[in-house]
């Protein structure tokens, strides 16, 4: 690691001020992505602003039509939360399958979204559920948040405070794990609610994306067979030592059909 200064503010206000004070200072949440990057010198920063003491980022609130989760809530807390299990069980299940126990005990929702790893799980949920990302400055709709490989709409010094998920009529997430890393080789999140169907894919391209052809077909008929013949192009998909682009395209089709089946209550 290159050297850095370390701050542990007690309030969001102080955290924002500290990030402003030093150019290129970075927030630290669970550190499950940032610390390895610092260790390998893939990342460096003059100052780390640890969000770990900010209780205001750690709440979960379930209301009639929305579930709001603080950016600092850990994956294991989402997986175990009664409110999440009642209001948005698909998200509790998704969180329970991120990485391994030790990673889930540290990693946070806000950290995962800000990181926007191309194979991360939460971005698929946020995009498919049309969630809103709240920051210390503004509210960003999911469709505008994920902008590219490890890139988001966040500006320097901007802190995610919470994420607001509208509760869907039905939804499911199916992930095909890359067995060594446990990230998604491909993951497909399908949701129906608020008069629209959304299909989000992670793990397959440089960032999470929506499959509008499938959304249209599912809008006409929400059933696995409705999308069985939708062709998924391999053009912009990743090829690496784990899977070729055409294999990923095929997986997207298979997993999307499974997700629709699961959302309908089948298995």
């Amino acid at each position, binding site marked *: 690691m290159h050297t850095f200064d370390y701050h542990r503010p007690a309030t969001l206000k102080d955290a924002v001020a500290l990030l402003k004070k030093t150019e290129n200072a970075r927030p630290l949440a669970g550190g499950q992505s940032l610390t390895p990057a610092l260790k390998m010198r893939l990342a460096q920063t003059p100052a780390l602003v640890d969000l770990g003491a900010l209780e205001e980022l750690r709440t979960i609130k379930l209301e009639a039509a929305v579930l709001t989760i603080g950016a600092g809530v850990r994956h294991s807390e989402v997986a175990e939360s009664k409110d999440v299990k009642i209001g948005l069980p698909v998200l509790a299940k998704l969180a329970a399958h991120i990485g391994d*126990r030790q990673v889930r005990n540290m990693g946070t929702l806000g950290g995962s979204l800000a990181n926007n790893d191309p194979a991360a799980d939460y971005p698929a949920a946020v995009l498919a559920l049309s969630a809103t990302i709240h920051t210390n400055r503004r509210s960003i709709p999911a469709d505008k948040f994920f902008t590219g490989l490890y890139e988001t709409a966040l500006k320097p010094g901007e802190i995610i405070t919470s994420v607001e998920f509208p509760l869907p009529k039905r939804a499911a997430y199916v992930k095909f794990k890359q067995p060594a890393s446990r990230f998604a080789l491909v993951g497909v999140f399908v949701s129906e609610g608020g008069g629209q169907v959304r299909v989000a894919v992670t793990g397959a391209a440089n960032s999470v994306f929506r499959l509008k052809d499938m959304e249209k077909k599912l809008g006409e008929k929400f059933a696995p067979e409705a999308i069985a013949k939708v062709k998924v192009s391999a053009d912009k998909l990743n090829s690496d030592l784990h899977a070729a682009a055409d294999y990923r395209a095929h997986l997207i089709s298979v997993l999307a059909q499974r997700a629709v089946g699961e959302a309908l209550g089948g298995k």
Partner: protein
Amino acid sequence: MTVSVSLTVNGKAVTADIDPRTLLAQLLRENLHLTGTHIGCDTGQCGACTVHLNGRAVKACNLLAVQAHGANVTTIEGICGAHGELHPMQAAFREHHGLQCGFCTPGMVMNAIELAQKHPNANEATVRAELDGNLCRCTGYHNIVKAVLAGAADMSKSVNNSVKG
């Protein structure tokens, strides 16, 4: 920059002035000489460095020591009984031959203790799935799984199964 970090390790208050880059695994091993916490991969993959932070299993090589400020940390050295008797999970690893070289064992035991607390009636499939953050290059896992099942059963039987931290 030097920062002061205060935490409780195996029930004892500890304060140290450290470079903020110090990993929790480093603080435990190099400052406190608690070398039961092993470093296998140093990249967050293998779980050999697993300790408990406020009762939850975490990888000490993937945590800055400053992140444990104010917290309760329990290492493999801190789980035995008052008179040095093995924790039921340790005893089960011995009984079921859940180790060969023993390098992965402290991390396995620390993860298995939280696993058993979260899933007191875990079956084999659950144990295999829930141990996915810990790698072993020797045993082929079968005896580890047997040990965890037996240790979990003993922990839920034992009246004195409260783990510090």
